[in-house]
Structures are given as structure tokens and as C-alpha cells.
């Protein structure tokens, strides 16, 4: 038995060598490697148990991840597939005077070039449609795409980008959100004001609350722009079929709304667009908006071939949404034993070049900015402004980590000035079941107090410090 198999192995080897010998440059087609994992799986007992809720159930996709068998977009390939690359402006604010794509189009291996003027409806966005798919008349931030190429290899596509010539006329730009607020600041989307959304929350009588306070504290806080940096970059493949339907394999986190956005930019009926998202390698809010999908769809339509686009890590930074930088001003009136009587909050959000999910972020940040505390007299004024920077959008927490940093730093400053323990001042003010939120909502299933007590207990907060 053993001998026979050895012989078989040997025969195969000779055949391969003979073939190789026929021509030095002959490359054999790559054969799929042998399957090295068991195809019969043992189902963990926890997945077999009832009741199902409350069980520490393992994930069905965990085994595939562990074996490296999960198929992400970049693992997919179709016959004749082309690779797309997008040329980035690299300039924060400019008018596009001319785009010359002739040299790129003439390159062998380049199958199509696309510019913004060819996109049926060149704008999108989840609430305001202020973002071009590819910038056509004006560049609003340095990461804007200005042209795209589909070629037989990624390398050729990248080379072709170098041969696209764009002539710009530089325009004034604004980068700081507080500068952008001023009347004489350059307008990012003229003639519109840079302030593109506001939110106000008013509760009780602020002046009366401050007047009744023993002490008034003020604080000013700022946060930075950060990127989601998911393991899997933004990626998609478009395939335009002869029935005029387009299928997109994409890393989108919200396919229902994404399909409507894509159909709108392509001027297609919604039912002519199919999106398949299968498994996405990390989102954190960064994949809640369409990016290159309409570009790939149109390149596929132009070439009649499937077209793949995978963002580089650099494109993930410059050309996709990020977390809003905040400027936060807090003024809080308290009694001498630490009860909060009044709070005034002013938030300025750096909205970057496009609205994206700014309205949602603004709303959540404004509502949450008072903290999980009972405050009868409250005024929150929040603004989001355009700047000529990478657009800011959805990111894990929608403005909450920013305001939490401010209200909790401010809380500790007050506690230390009043000689109170940071835990005690929170217990004195925290929400309970039935408390009223800043918007007047009666809160239910509230366990904020329990969270403070449980965390403090586990940490050993009340124990003597070394």
C-alpha cells in the first residue's frame, strides 16, 4: 500500500519535470493547495444547548476566521476582472480647470478612465447630498478623487494615474472649526454658510439655576480627529451585466440605504442594483457610507468587465470618514455639597468637507453632553461647521466619547475643588429609574447608579490607598 502510493507520487513528479523541461519559461497553472483542515466539524456543546439566550455561544464564522477560510472582498476574483485606482487631488481647496486623461487612456492595459462629469448624478450623502463621487468642478479637501482608471493590473492602473494631468486654480481654504465659524472665513461650499447644522436643547431656567448655585465652574476641552482603521480596507467589486443590472460585492455596513444611494448616483431603478456584503472585516462606523462603488459600477459598464477596487491604508485615512474633532465649553453651577443645579454647554464640531453623518453625531452629542446626571436647568448649543479637511462621519459613539471626556473631566475638577470624592459627586447627581433626560424623556431600565457602585466595588475604590 505504502509502496504503491510512493510510486504514484514519483510518476507525477516525472510528468511535471518533463513538462517543465519542454520550455524553460513554461509556467504550470497553479493548482489549488490540498485541503489541510477537517471538513467534518465538531459542534461545540454550547451551540446545542437550550435555552439559547444567555449562552456563551461560539460564532459560526469563528472557525472560518481561524482557518483563514473567510472570503473577504479581496479574496474574490472573477474571469476578466480589472483593477481600479482613483487619483486623489492632494490639494485642499481648488477649482478644477482641466483634466487631461488622453495619455492614460493610450496606455496598453488601461481599459477605461472615468471623470466626475460622466457620473449621472455626481453627489451623495446620508442626509445632505453635498459630496461628489469624483470631484468635477471643485476640490473640497485633499483626499477628493478627481479621476479613476480601470486596468488589467493594479500596477498599470497606478501608473496611469500618474499620466492624468489636472490643472487647478487654488482657492482659499479654512481648516480650524472656530475660524470657519467666523463671518469672514472662506466658505467651503459657497454660497452656503459653513455652519451646516445646529442643535439646541433647553430645559428649566438656566439663569435661576446659576443664581441659586454656590459655586460656578468653567472648562474648555478639545478632541482630535481619529480614523477607524478597520483591519479590512474599503473594498468592492462591480459587475455590470447585459441586462443592465449591476452587482456589487462591497464592505458596506448598511446595504439597504447604500443601495438607494448607489442607484441614485447611477440613475438606476433600485431593483437594478444588488449589493452583497457577506462578511465585513471591521466597520466602527467607517463603512456606513458608499465610497468608490458608483465609480467601479461605471468602470464596469464602460469595459463590460468586473472591476475591483481596494483602498490602500492611506486612502482609508484621506478619503473616508473620520471622527469629529470637538471644541467644548462647559459652565456648571453646583451647591457646595456637589449637587448640579445648572449647566451650559457649547459644542463646535469640525465637520470636515462634507456632512456625512454629522447631523446624527451633532444630535447625539448635544443630547448626551449633559452626562448621565439629573440637571433641571440646562442649555446646550451645538454647531457643526465645514472645513477643507477629510470628512467626519459616523464613528463608534457618534460624538459621545468626546462629550464624555469633557463632562467627566469637568466633574472631577468640581469634585476636587469642593473636596468631594469623585465617586460621591457622581452618586449624588446620577440618573435613576424614572429620571428625566435633557430632552424631557422619562428614562427606563436605568442602572447608572449600579454601574458606578459595581465598578467601584470591583476596583476597590473605597479601600485605603497604598
Amino acid at each position, binding site marked *: 500500500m505504502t509502496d504503491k502510493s510512493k510510486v504514484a507520487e514519483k510518476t507525477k513528479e516525472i510528468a511535471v519535470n518533463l513538462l517543465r523541461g519542454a520550455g524553460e519559461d513554461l509556467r504550470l497553472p497553479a493548482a489549488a493547495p490540498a485541503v489541510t483542515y477537517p471538513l467534518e466539524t465538531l459542534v461545540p456543546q*454550547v*451551540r*446545542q*444547548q437550550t435555552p439559547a*439566550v*444567555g*449562552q*456563551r*455561544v461560539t460564532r*459560526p464564522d469563528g472557525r472560518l476566521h481561524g482557518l483563514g477560510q473567510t472570503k473577504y472582498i479581496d479574496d474574490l476574483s472573477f474571469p476578466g476582472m480589472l483593477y481600479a485606482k482613483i487619483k486623489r487631488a492632494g490639494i*485642499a*481647496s481648488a477649482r478644477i480647470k482641466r483634466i487631461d486623461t488622453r495619455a492614460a487612456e493610450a496606455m496598453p492595459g488601461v481599459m477605461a478612465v472615468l471623470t466626475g462629469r460622466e457620473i449621472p448624478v455626481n453627489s451623495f450623502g446620508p442626509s445632505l447630498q453635498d459630496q461628489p463621487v469624483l470631484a468635477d468642478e471643485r476640490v473640497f479637501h*485633499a483626499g477628493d478623487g478627481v479621476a479613476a482608471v480601470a486596468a488589467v493590473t493594479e500596477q498599470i492602473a497606478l501608473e496611469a494615474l500618474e499620466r492624468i494631468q489636472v490643472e487647478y486654480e487654488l482657492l482659499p481654504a479654512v481648516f480650524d472649526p472656530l475660524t470657519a465659524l467666523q463671518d469672514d472665513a472662506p466658505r467651503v461650499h459657497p454660497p452656503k454658510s459653513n455652519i451646516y447644522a445646529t442643535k*439646541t436643547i*433647553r430645559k428649566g431656567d438656566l439663569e435661576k439655576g446659576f443664581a441659586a448655585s454656590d459655586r460656578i465652574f468653567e*472648562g474648555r476641552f478639545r*478632541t*482630535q*480627529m481619529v*480614523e477607524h*482603521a478597520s483591519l479590512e480596507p474599503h473594498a468592492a467589486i462591480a459587475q455590470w451585466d447585459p441586462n443592465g443590472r449591476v452587482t456589487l460585492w462591497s464592505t*458596506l*455596513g448598511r*446595504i439597504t*440605504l447604500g443601495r438607494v444611494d448607489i442607484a441614485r448616483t447611477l440613475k438606476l431603478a433600485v431593483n437594478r442594483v*444588488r449589493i*452583497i456584503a457577506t462578511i*465585513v472585516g*471591521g*466597520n466602527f462606523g467607517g463603512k456606513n457610507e458608499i465610497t468608490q462603488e458608483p465609480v467601479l459600477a461605471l468602470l464596469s459598464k464602460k469595459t463590460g468587465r468586473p472591476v475591483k477596487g481596494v483602498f490602500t*491604508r*492611506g486612502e482609508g*485615512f*484621506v478619503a473616508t470618514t473620520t471622527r469629529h474633532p470637538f471644541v467644548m465649553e462647559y459652565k456648571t453651577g453646583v451647591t457646595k455639597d456637589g449637587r448640579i443645579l445648572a449647566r451650559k454647554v457649547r459644542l463646535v464640531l469640525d465637520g470636515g468637507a462634507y456632512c456625512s453623518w454629522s447631523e446624527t453625531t451633532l444630535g*447625539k452629542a448635544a443630547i448626551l453632553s449633559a*452626562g448621565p446626571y439629573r440637571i433641571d436647568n440646562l442649555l*446646550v448649543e451645538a454647531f457643526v461647521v465645514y472645513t477643507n*479637511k477629510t470628512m467626519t462621519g459616523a464613528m463608534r*459613539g*457618534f460624538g*459621545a*466619547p468626546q462629550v*464624555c471626556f469633557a463632562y*467627566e*473631566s469637568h466633574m*472631577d*475638577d468640581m469634585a476636587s475643588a469642593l473636596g468631594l470624592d469623585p465617586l460621591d459627586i457622581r452618586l449624588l447627581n446620577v*440618573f435613576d429609574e424614572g429620571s428625566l433626560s435633557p430632552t*424631557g*424623556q422619562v428614562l*427606563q*431600565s*436605568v*442602572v*447608572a447608579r*449600579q*454601574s458606578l457602585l459595581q*465598578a*467601584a466595588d470591583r*476596583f476597590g475604590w473605597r479601600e485605603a490607598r497604598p
Partner: protein
Amino acid sequence: MKRRGRGIACMWYPIGFTVSANPSAATVKVNEDGTATVLTGTVETGQGSLTVLGQIAAEELGVATDDVHVVSADTDVTPMDTGAIASRTTYVTGNAVKLAAEKAKAILFEAAAPMLGVRPEQLEAKDRTIRVKGFPQRNLPIGEVANHAQAVKGEPAIGSASWNPPTLAMDPDTGQGKPFSTYVYATQIAEVEVDDETGDVEVIRIVAAHDCGTAINPMLVEGQIEGGISMGVGFALQEEMLFDAAGRQINPNLTNYIMPTSLDMPRIEVDIIDNYDPTGPFGAKGVGEPTSVPTAAAILNAIHDAVGVRITSLPATAEKVLAAIRAKSAHERIAVR
């Protein structure tokens, strides 16, 4: 010298979108052998949402998680869903899946009632059987009932449903209203070590007590909390996109944009708070985003506790912390004179 400090931060966070409708729909099909298939338009983005949705369907049908296969994220196949966003999947899509499973179960009960000689409302689905409430020995395997419903009665057990969290528009002038159906609450406490000669901050330990309503899958909740804390550590101490004077990014890469690695992670101790929200599926709310909300605040308060400086802009890089420590000691020297 390395100085220890501790800082506390409490937060609240809503589940779902602000005011605007954000529905999810789902379909649950019970197969001929009592296993089931769930169709959902949500996307698995690594958080384990499909596992949780499978558990919710299994619970409603009285079967085990492995009996349920979840099909997701194909607009030609799966029903609408507002998406994997706003910590809403367990709560909103979970409610839709539960309602769809209830409808499929009602068809099973209609089929089983005459087989067991009772009325449908006297039945329950438990341990892969359809059984008479209070008389667990009077039961039929769920597969037998499902097959009977489909092959004998001609009524396959399929249910479809949608759910949207009830909200009330906010007044434009005062912001008064009910923008979200429900909220979750959490506290994190950080312990840090600050080197007062270099400004370097090391996060030693984080205790995290989080509310998510019922924890449908405690292991996945813990995973979310640990992942959220790693993002919070980066936000607090390291991560920052920088621009030059012309508005171009100068560190759009993972060499110069520093994210926490496993070596930067503190010891994490997780407490899931006992809670039940009557509006959520089996009492569940959500946990995705809130886990990274209080981390930076707790770390910054711990830095203040350790070395007495208040850093008011993030991230609290070693340079920033050292400058604040030096400014403070210079100020103190002047005060002593």
C-alpha cells in the same frame, strides 16, 4: 518617578438613531426537520451580530443556536435593514427576528394543537419540542410538527416581521422630545502609571461595568467591551490625524499614526450589570458603541489623580503630559518663593 493614579467615568448612550425611523425587517423559516433559517439585511462586521440574531430566533422557537442558520446582507435575498450602525442590531433587528419567529411559531402551534388535543394558546416551544404548558411530557418533536404543517396541512412555518423603535420628534427650539426608545449606562475605572520625568502614561487596569439589558451572549458582550476599551486607549493617549498648513494629512499610515497594540492593553475586568429592558428582545438593549465611550475620560481623570495635571485636549501624549507637569512644578516653585 512613576506615579499611580485612578480615574472614574460614567456614561449613558442611546440605542438606535436620533428620531428618524430606523426599522429592521426579518424572515424566519422553520425547515422540515425543525431547524430554521433567518433572513436579515444586517451585515456582520465582526461583532458577532449574526450569532446573537440566531440565538434570539432559537430562543423564540425553543431550539438550540446551532439549529438556526442566519443568511445576511444580500439586497436580492434579504429584507431591508437600517444597518450595522448606532448599536442597534441586537435591539432593533433582534426585535424584528423575534417577531418573525413568533409568527412562524404560531403556524407550528396551529398544526400541533389538534395533534396534541389542546388549543394553540396552551402550547409552548421548548427543548426542540412543541409541548403543552405545564405538561412537558405531552410533546411532539418540533421537526415532526414543522413537517406536518408543511407536508400535510400545506402551511409552511414562515414568518416575516419588521420593527421600528418608537420615538417622538424633538422640538426644534427646545430639543424636548423622545429621540430614542432606550439608553444604556456604564462606568469604567482606570488605573494608570505616569512617569513624571517623561510624561509617558501606561494604563495598568480598567474595570468596566456595563449595562446592555439582557446579555444574549455574555462572551460577545465581553469581546465588545475589550475591543471598545482598546479604541478608547488609542483615543486617550495616542491616535491623532495630523495636517500640514496646506490641509494635507502628514501621517496617513500606521507607522506614524500610532494605534494601541496588544502590548498597550491594560488588564480588563468586566462586569455585566443585571438588567432587563421590557422593550428589547428578551430584555436586551445593546453594547457596541458604549464600550469605547468612557475609557478616555477615565484615563484622563486617572492622569490627573496621579500627577495633578488636567489635560484638556486629546490625545494626552507623553509630550503634552510632560509639558503640563513642568508647567505645574514651575508654577509651584514660584508660589513657594
